[in-house]
């Protein structure tokens, strides 16, 4: 029997794309979330930092939900083994994502320093923990975990915390942190941007180092050498190195470089895993192949039609969102505005009548 069919290959690639999309997009959300508490010196700066990801973070997180749903639909065995096997790790990730999400929403809902401080901690921890644990999880997926003949995970939570896996987690944590710092430099103005730039210049160094060591470790674990994985891994490290140089010059180019680096990093991981979905450290006979893990050809065909119709559309309107909110955000935008009433006061003080604000990209059509 063949190891995989064309449709299975397509879905393996598509699920890789969904995970990569998630890590590129939520990667900078994580970085920004980690930085918010310490980088923002006052309420306005923190608000500016929040607003840099405000319109997009929720849409970014949906990439994870769709990656999970697509895995369920296309590779149910993979979904079942992975999610039940990594039970406590996923529980911790879920709790972290929940406190982070409500942290974003509730942070500004009360005018109290203690209140905001509490939510800033939630956002910080809720961003750092998944940034670390996703790397741990993927290191375990490709590194192999105890899986029996029934495709069930037989280990426990601590089996997932090997030195190799933890270093993988450190790689994603440092990369997402640098990615987020660069994003914040690019998306904000003034003091916040300057400080984020300083952080980014430092943060990119450990990101390059840890990633290079971990990828080398990964490749050395496989004999014979996985050439396509090696090429992608080298490209990832080169892209990170490029970002380290560019972050001192043109920040948007540095951001492009970390984006490429994350794409290459995870492409290397997925190439390494292919044509399996889970590796068994118990017995290589229990490795789960694409063919073993997958849904029927009919289901894959249906899902392919749906994906071909909808994925381009998603890219268009998510892209449009980034375009609409492309303006750089400055803490001064918020002034001493706390409530809408203050906003009107401020505008009156400035001598305006509240009508002559710069409308940015807003086009106001004549209304009937």
């Amino acid at each position, binding site marked *: 029997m063949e190891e995989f069919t064309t449709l299975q290959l397509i879905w393996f690639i598509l699920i890789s794309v969904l995970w990569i999309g998630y890590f590129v997009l939520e990667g900078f959300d994580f970085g920004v979330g980690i930085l918010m508490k310490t980088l923002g010196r006052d309420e306005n700066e923190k*608000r500016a930092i929040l*607003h840099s990801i*405000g319109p*997009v973070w*929720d849409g970014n997180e*949906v990439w994870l*939900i*769709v990656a*999970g*749903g*697509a895995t*369920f*639909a296309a590779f*149910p*065995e993979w979904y*079942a*083994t992975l*999610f*039940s096997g990594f*039970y*406590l790790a996923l*529980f911790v990730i*879920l*709790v972290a*994502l*929940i406190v982070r*999400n*409500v942290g*974003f*929403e*509730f942070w500004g*809902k009360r005018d109290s320093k203690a209140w905001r401080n509490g939510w800033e901690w939630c956002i910080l921890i809720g961003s750092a923990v998944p940034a670390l644990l996703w790397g741990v999880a993927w290191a375990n997926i490709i590194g192999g975990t105890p899986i029996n003949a029934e495709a*069930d*995970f037989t280990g426990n939570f601590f089996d997932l915390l090997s030195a190799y896996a933890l270093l993988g987690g450190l790689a994603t944590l440092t990369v997402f942190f640098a990615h987020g710092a660069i994003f914040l430099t690019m998306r904000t103005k003034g003091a916040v941007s300057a400080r984020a730039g300083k952080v980014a210049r430092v943060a990119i160094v450990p990101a390059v180092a840890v990633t290079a060591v971990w990828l080398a470790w990964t490749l050395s674990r496989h004999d014979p050498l996985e050439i396509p994985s090696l090429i992608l891994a080298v490209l990832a490290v080169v892209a990170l190195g490029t970002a380290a140089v560019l972050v001192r010059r043109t920040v948007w180019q540095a951001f492009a470089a970390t984006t490429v680096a994350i794409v290459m990093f995870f492409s290397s991981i997925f190439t390494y895993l292919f044509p399996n979905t889970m590796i068994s450290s118990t017995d290589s006979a229990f490795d789960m192949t694409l063919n073993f893990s997958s*849904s029927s050809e*009919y*289901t894959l065909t*249906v*899902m392919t039609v749906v*994906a071909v119709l*909808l*994925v381009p559309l*998603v890219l268009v*309107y*998510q892209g449009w969102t980034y375009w*609409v909110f492309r*303006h750089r955000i400055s803490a001064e935008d918020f002034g001493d505005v706390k409530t*809408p009433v203050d*906003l*009107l006061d401020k*505008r009156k003080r400035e001598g305006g009548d509240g*009508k002559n*604000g710069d*409308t940015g*990209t*807003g*086009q*106001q*059509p004549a*209304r009937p």
Partner: protein
Amino acid sequence: MTSLELARWQFGITTLYHFIFVPLTIGLAFFTAYAQTRWYRTDDEKWKKATRFWGKLMLISFALGVATGIVQEFQFGMNWSDYSRFVGDVFGAPLAMEGLAAFFVESTFLGLWLFGWGRLSKKVHLATIWMVSGSTILSAYFILAANSWMQHPVGYEMVDGKAQLTSIWAVLGNSTALYAFAHTILASLLTGGMVIAGISAWHLLRNSHTDVFKGSLRMVVPVLAVAGVTTIGVGHFNGVLMSEQQPMKMAAADAVFDTTEGAGLSLFAVGSMESNPEGLERNIEIPNLLSFVMTGFPRSEVQGINDLNAEYRERFGPGEYAPIVAVAYWSWRTMLGIGFALALLAVIAWWLLRKERLERSTKLLKATMWMAPLPFIASFAGWIFTEMGRQPWSVFGLLRTSDSVSPTVSSAEVWISLVGFTLLYGVLAVIAGRIFFRIAGKGPPDEDPDEDSENAHFGLAY
């Protein structure tokens, strides 16, 4: 407790909690879009205030719904891996479609709406909130199609002991799904509408922001009346369909033990909480009404629990095929009782509205205020009935719940997540509840920021 029991408790707790926010968000998103449309058309300041006020409450509900929704998706694999292996080929498809077709739209356009005040043209901005409302409704369709397949499996064949999809149209067009969708969406409008009506009544009784809340109340009352009555109507046909597809659930709902012709509808019964007690100790019933409710004919036969059990033992082998009768019996009654009470309230309110006496009727405003939480209880009861009434099956007739659980996840692990989620959800309920009521009680601010300014999202966003 075994990991099976713990996993069931966790699924029940997290799902019901999640379902506080689902109908509330669907309902509030719809009415926020409705109010914004009125503002767009009339340029009346009060509709802008209403849009922003209800939108703000919708955002809180939305945030919690999204946060707790990820747990729902992960949970199938985490706690129910054998279920996932068994149904993945069929069940995964609508789940993935929900993400691709609805969640992406919902989250992206909510960001555009929230931060797009003053940045997008009025027309485009209005379109974004309708996209949000439409996608919340669409997502309900996909998840209900998935759930309906568990109630009434269609469009599949068994291959190597697993369900394999043969027709996606059969799954998406499942009669069970169509009724469940209509019932759920109408109930969601009822939920969101009652919350709006209740909060509006509270403010009107205090004479605060009367223009905004008078308008809001008048906006929701006709919808409530229509949705209230049609929810019951659709629910009736839902019940008739269920009598055919899952007769055991219906028999348990009315605690009918022996097959009866011209069965009466029980109003109040006392019996044991065992999963299959011998019978009832006390029973007050209306003659022939159950037969009529279930089939449309007062004299027709209603199958009893004991006879169905005998039939299923022949088909599926020895075992107990009845759900916990008392749970099915009381959850069904709770749902129906609340449904009728709400429909009555809404019809009276509509009548008073047409007589122009609604805002002056203190009694009705007070009743509306106190009855606003009832739709949540009805939804809870409805889902408890639907899911617990299906037991011992997770997929009716195909897979038992006891065969669905993750075999290698230990009860210690499930204890940790069960306690963890319950504590976290409890704390969030207190915090979110306080914020919700504080915002609701304060009413809209006297002056909103100028809608043409790029900072017009202040007061809504973080």
